[in-house]
């Protein structure tokens, strides 16, 4: 696929997403919004896994921390101001990522995977075991944040359409931001760290700082996803920080294909789509999900976005069977 057809394809998908609320039912609009939020979440993880080569298995922590932040910042009988709650939630997630990053980035490889998991569990227990966020029952977000600036409101998140376009805007913002990051010298250093950290070190780059910056940025963007998720569904539970959530988002990145953002988006679409289909089929839908994952790992290396190219290569190579 050359870059021109790929751009046209992307624009067509975007047009479809933008026009969706006019045709789809409210249920499906909410589902699309959910996919878009998870796409933000997956792209933020892709910055670590696909671009910097840091396999974090605790990314749900930052998602959950921001979700709790907006729930806790919302007064019981009033909405919080969007312009306060949004930056505060993202900042909370980024600060948490920065502090945890100071610890976990001292480790490498398999240690990194396990240690990020363990720190996320720690965050999970903070919300699960203490009364801060309503314990294991979680906490309701009774009012969506209020977008008014000095009495004038450009939009209202209680309107499903407004919320939908707000989510679309956030998704586009994150996509554009990460594209910029990738093109910037900073992004080139991150890619360099993935392929050979020792070389980057000997070239004089303080790789720890770069990794910490990437980890913090990824945490903040995961926080943006968590914020939107809490606002969309109106409640927060400790499950937002659970390791299953971290596993799901890792799954999106890997299934979709790493390192190119579009893969992360495709992974989010695929995973939510499969979930919808499987839950419609059986109560034991996780069995189908598990089998799909196992089959995907065994038979689809490189993820979904790499598969068309692999099929093409096979056809062009004249090989028709394994």
């Amino acid at each position, binding site marked *: 696929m050359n870059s021109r057809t790929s751009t046209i394809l992307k624009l067509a998908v975007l047009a479809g997403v933008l026009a969706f609320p006019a045709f789809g039912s409210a249920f499906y609009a909410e589902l699309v919004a959910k996919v878009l939020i998870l796409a933000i979440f997956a792209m933020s993880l892709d910055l670590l896994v696909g671009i910097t080569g840091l396999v974090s298995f605790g990314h749900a922590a930052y998602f959950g921390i921001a979700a709790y932040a907006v729930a806790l910042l919302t007064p019981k009988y009033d909405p919080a101001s969007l312009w306060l709650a949004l930056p505060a939630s993202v900042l909370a997630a980024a600060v948490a990522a920065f502090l945890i990053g100071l610890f976990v980035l*001292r480790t490498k*490889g398999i240690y990194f995977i*396990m240690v990020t998991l*363990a720190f996320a569990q*720690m965050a999970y227990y903070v919300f699960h075991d203490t009364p801060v966020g309503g314990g294991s029952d979680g906490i309701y977000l009774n009012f969506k944040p209020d977008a008014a600036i000095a009495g004038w409101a450009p939009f209202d998140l209680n309107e499903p359409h407004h919320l939908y376009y707000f989510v679309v805007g956030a998704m586009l913002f994150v996509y554009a931001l990460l594209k910029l990051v990738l093109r910037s010298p900073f992004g080139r250093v991150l890619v360099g760290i993935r392929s050979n950290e020792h070389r980057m070190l000997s070239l004089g780059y303080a790789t720890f700082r770069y990794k910490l910056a990437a980890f913090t940025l990824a945490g903040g963007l995961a926080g943006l996803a968590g914020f939107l998720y809490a606002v969309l569904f109106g409640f927060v539970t400790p499950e937002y920080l659970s390791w299953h959530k971290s596993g799901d988002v890792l799954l999106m990145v890997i299934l979709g294909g790493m390192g190119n953002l579009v893969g992360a988006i495709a992974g989010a679409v695929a995973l939510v789509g499969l979930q919808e289909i499987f839950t419609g089929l059986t109560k034991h839908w996780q*069995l189908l999900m*598990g089998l799909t994952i*196992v089959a995907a790992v065994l038979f689809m290396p490189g993820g979904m976005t790499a598969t068309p190219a692999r099929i093409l290569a096979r056809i062009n190579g004249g090989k028709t069977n394994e």
Partner: protein
Amino acid sequence: MDFVSFLIQVLNSLQYGLLLFLVASGLTLVFGIMGIINLAHGSFYMVGAYLAFALTSMTGNLMLAIALGIPLAFVFGAILEWALFSHLYKRDHLEQVLLTYGLILIFEELRSLAVGDEVHGVTIPELFSASIPLSDNLSYPVYRLVISIVCLALAGGLYWLIQKTRLGMMIRAGSHDRDMVKALGIDINLLYRTVFALGVALAALAGMLAAPISSVYPGMGSSVLIISFVIVVIGGVGSVWGALVAALVIGFADTFGKVLLPDLAGLMVYLVMAVVLLWRPEGIFKKA
């Protein structure tokens, strides 16, 4: 805290720590020797507990159930290694994480299909159902002591197996240089299969022993899995000795955390890990 309650907590810490060691030792062996990160290891603990429940219901005796369960778990492990894990040796950690994550979902749902989602109890064998009185109103259950003794014996046996036997020699060599071991004419595939099956059997045995005290419930594998990861990380990946020390540290941190700082109980284990990693990022007993 008076002396007797303190003693009881010490015994509880030891028992919990030693049980965790059984689970973590398999995890660290499989990683250290085969280079595989296995998220489904907690599922083997769960499989063990459910095996104990099913076999005890059938035979009416937990000890008989364990005697039958260990070989079953070993064979189950060997089949899994043959069918799935043997395809993972050359894949990177990411794909191993994914595939074994998928396995967790599969095991959980198969369990739900086979035995439902209720919590089950397993009765302690009559022989060990007594308690030893320690003071006028405090006593310690014999069964917990039995668990500790069995686990200690197994830890000793594992040490003997790895340090003193021919199989252990091959295991140690295999963790060091796979190709060299192969070149020496050792059947590395058989070796890996044995080690994996051994790891599964140890985790399942831990689940079987724990079944009467923790009861048998859905999702019981995942909390044990994460604690085992912490133990493996603290001990140093691949080090069985490190896993033993770390498991005991965690056993004490968790048990005393629950007594002394109940609000922080869930966090205690992870705080210990954070401190250890600040001090030594690659665990206490990092293999050279």
